[in-house]
């Protein structure tokens, strides 16, 4: 399998960058923002027995990280197909 069109590939790369930036925004939000910067404010609320900020710092951010990688995998596999560069 080979790839020809230059313009198309630049569009593919641009779309990839947009997807990455979107994912990094969520990555930053759950860990650095919710888990560290506003953790005390969030701790005033509870989910079950967890203060919300504490939960983000101890579990929520990690669970989100796992989901983030899998949505990235899913979106990129679709993008590979859209630009017909998917590998076998």
């Amino acid at each position, binding site marked *: 399998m080979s790839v020809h069109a230059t313009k198309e590939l630049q569009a593919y790369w641009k779309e990839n960058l947009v997807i990455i930036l979107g994912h990094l925004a969520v990555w930053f939000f759950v860990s*650095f923002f919710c888990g560290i910067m506003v953790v005390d404010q969030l701790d005033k609320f509870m989910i079950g027995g967890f203060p919300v900020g*504490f939960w983000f710092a101890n579990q929520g951010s990690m669970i989100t990280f796992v989901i983030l*990688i899998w949505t990235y995998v899913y979106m990129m596999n679709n993008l590979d197909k859209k630009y017909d560069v998917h590998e076998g």
Partner: protein
Amino acid sequence: MSILTWTWILTGLSFALYIYIAYASRAKSTGDFYAAEQSVPPIMNGMATGADWMSAASFISMAGLISFMGRDGSFYLMGWTGGYVLLAMLFGPYLRKYGKFTIPQFMGDRYYSNSIRVLSLLCAIFVSFTYVAGQMRGVGVVFSRFMGVSINMGVIIGMALVFFYATLGGMKGITYTQVAQYVVLICAYMVPAVFISMQLTGNPIPQLGMGSAITAEGAMKLNDVTTQGKYLLDVLNNIQTDLGFSQYTNGARPRIDVWFITMSLMIGTAGLPHILIRFFTVPKMRDARSSAGYALLFIAILYTTAPAIAVFARTNFIKSVHNVKYEDAPSWFKNWEKTGLVGWKDKNGDGIMQIAKGKETDPKSANEVKIDRDIMVLANPEIAKLPNWVVGLIGAGGLAAALSTAAGLLLVISAAVSHDLMKGILKPNMSDKEELIWARVGAGVAVCIAGLFGIYPPGFVAQVVAFAFGLAAASFFPCILMGIFNKKANKEGALVGMFVGIAFVTAYIVYFKFVNPAVNDKDHWWFGISPEGIGTVGAALNFICMYVVGKFTPEPPQEIQDMVGSLRYPGKLVAPPSAGH
């Protein structure tokens, strides 16, 4: 059967399995030895990466560390998992497309410079040795605590095993033994956690149990009926404040420091060579992405359980020891007293054990109980009165965690010597066979040096672990990132950036850890950033230098820019994407 018998049986079986796998998957070519012929299925690579990543420290020490730090401990949790998001999106797929065998080789090719290759291989070797020293010691410690063998003998047994499968199988042997080691270590970690979560909260999932209310049975276990129906975290918070500690769910560290440490651990993770090379072993670019997903899933199983164990163990420990007469102390307390991990000093002479703030050795503190952080995982099954085979499993799990990480690190060292130094620079004409011999010799020598570190542990190991992450963050992370995402990033910028990043991080850490440790506190740190978090600043300096120097020096040659372009897409490129420039 006794705990000792079970430990020997389970450890023996697991070792036999590792040896069998190593023999079955021995390496025949350098491609096998460095990258397992790029034929590892992503789910297997995910497990192997998990085992590679989770070290003796993750397995034995992390939960205990967190149990003493409360919410502040979360920077380990977020920092040591968040890097995988970066690996999946920013590094893994593109390094797989590059497809060669080592990180120094990538650095040297991308920045068309042997100086950068040499600098990178020195960094890779330094970071890996720093890390491996702790692993071999960990092997010895597990052997001595669970099996009554001396620490040195334990290190030698561990060395012999790693020597066998690392020199024989290279990456291929290591990968498949790591898969087995992941299974062993995750079972060993989860089984006690599930049991204890059931006992205290009736919820079999420890992650949920941590935020649940205590059941009637749990309250009995804690010898305190008043805790029934209350949330476990509230109960622990109350215990903490009653004893004069701060609330468990509150943090004490300045938030700016937590922020910088988390960032430093994340980008340090993404810059560690033994993790990066795992992406070379899968067949395709898309497999590199999904194997990062599997890896983090498998890692997160342990990492989300660790804070739960921290909460269960701390509550259990204080409730079963504090204000209890020494003669009524639980049997596990007396068992582990022999190892020195727990201890009691009757300061007020009342025969009752009291826990309070401060060290038990400090005459001013009312605290009488010594608690080593490792006890929280090691004695966990005994505290919860679980069957002997579960206790035996902990030993096998700790060994699996330490050995798998050690093997991955040793491979980085061996490849840096044989592939980058010998084949790449000193003896470019040697044959594949000859290189394979060098790789095996390199692995063998590295195992022996690592073993010596285990037997004669340098006193500074704990201090230099922060150094390993800081260095990876300040050297590899920015250069690999720019190398993929900016075609114009050039040799001069990378060289200056790496030097500045490494020099800055080294100077800061050496100053606070070795030259002037007396001022290693938040009033003296720059902007309140501890040496553990300084890698973030080093990385930022590296980025700035690369950008500024790159502006004033020549662009990289066209073929390098084309090569970078080709990394970004799956499949072969016929027309280079930069043709339009």
